[in-house]
């Protein structure tokens, strides 16, 4: 799984949990909360969906790593690699 693919799958999840958000101009290096109407509970949904859809476990201590698309990709690439994806 490449970084771009990881960003895409995070965006796919956000599109499902926040269908009203316009995701066409999300800046990868800016915190998602600062550009979208997402609150801390929405991040819990992202965590749940990563587990459900991709078998990725994000322990609580790592929640902050999902702050932006860039940091999410950075964090998820090795996780997918460890799963052989």
């Amino acid at each position: 799984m490449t970084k771009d693919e990881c960003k895409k799958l995070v965006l796919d999840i956000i599109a499902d949990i926040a269908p009203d958000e316009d995701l066409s101009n999300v800046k990868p290096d800016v915190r998602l909360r600062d550009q979208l109407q997402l609150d801390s509970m929405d991040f819990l949904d992202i965590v749940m969906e990563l587990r459900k859809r991709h078998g990725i476990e994000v322990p609580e201590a790592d929640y902050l790593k999902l702050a932006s698309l860039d940091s999410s990709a950075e964090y998820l690439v090795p996780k997918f690699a460890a799963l052989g994806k």
Partner: protein
Amino acid sequence: MSAESPQPWDVVIIGGGLSGLAAGIRCAQFFKRVVIVEAHSKLGGLNSYYHKLDRRHLFSNGLHTVTNFRPTSRRWGRDLVMRNLGMSWDEFEIRPPRYPSRISLPGVTLAFDNDPRVLEESVAARFPSEIDGFRRLCAVVEKESVVLQASHADCFEFLRSFIASPELVAALALPILCYGAHQEGTIDSRLFSILFRSLLIEGCGSPVDIKSMLDRLQTRFRSLGGELLTRSPIASLTVDGGRVRAATLADGRVIEGVRFLSSAGLSETGKLCGSQWGKPGTISVFQWIGAYDRPLEQFGIRDTLHFAASRVDYTWRIPGDRVFSDLITYSANDNYAFPQPGHAHFKISCFSHASEWSLADRDAYAAQKRRYADELLRITYGYYPELSQARPLVEDLFSPLTVERYTHHPGGTIYGGAEKTWDGRTALQNLFIIGNDQGGVGIMGAMTSGVLVSNLQVILSKAG
């Protein structure tokens, strides 16, 4: 996995009512070992069920209605709860009403339904000069209701800041007070906003009975690996260095945990810890349920819910030692659009204090229940004359003492204590309050409370 296994539970939930079940489901999505500990054999707490007549005839003791029928925001009400539970609303088979609901006071009748325009039009027709204020009220209610804290403003003052007519203020307050006012006099304007939005703006529905809803929640909880202990009253919580370490059951079993969520009530939970917290509530209920062999509409009952006051200048207080018949709530269980006709149960409730009742003399207790019921029925025939000709298959009466006995809430309080915790926190670091005493009133309110407190205080925080 047994309850006594040496490893502590990640989350221990006290109570298998709607807030406990919702919290259990939410926590079980994030933690491996979650246990719900319920005193009774059945789940549901204040919204439970029993059988009468025969084994197939099920009565839901509460369940007048399930609020928040229409989703209006993904962060609130029905969508918030369903998304957090990972369940779909359709699973619960909640049907909308077939008849509108009614608010009635002498000289004032308003209708409301799942389409908010019904109430709006009804206000416009009776109080044309108030309609702008009413619309502003609805807009503000939506903003107020999303904040998870108390505002301390009196709901009557809040209403009067939009509406001049005392009759309209009384009419709009009536269903909200009956549906969830936990203390006499008045309630906080934020709690008022939450209930107003849930009931009057988003509308209502009902499953056939509460058991079907509880069964689905239980199945979901178990499918996530959650453990459920029934017939397991907790006798005390062991506190150690500002934290709860374990719960001890009445039979001596010890359940150790890292985090605790309690739906037993704030003052009740304090007692379990050997402390005095909050302020016990006083609002309880007397209810008459009649089961009929024909649809209720055939007796001229064409309301789904009906909130009735005998005077426009009613006060939200329970007068001691007499039937609190100033304010009555009616619910016609079969006036929802079920695919098959449901049981025709008509419920009449008024508010009451446990202190008015005593079990010391069984005959006197039975006679007092009869007296209350007759008084309620007498008033009811004024609204529904045809009902006086109908014989119910069976009647059931319950008093505040019945509620107390089955829910463990002292005084049989149905909306919790007089103090709410709002953020769910207690004096102990790893113990949180969910349900009525966090501010989550009603079926949907209790479930919202279970998921929000789990998210904010348990899953997202470092508690534990």
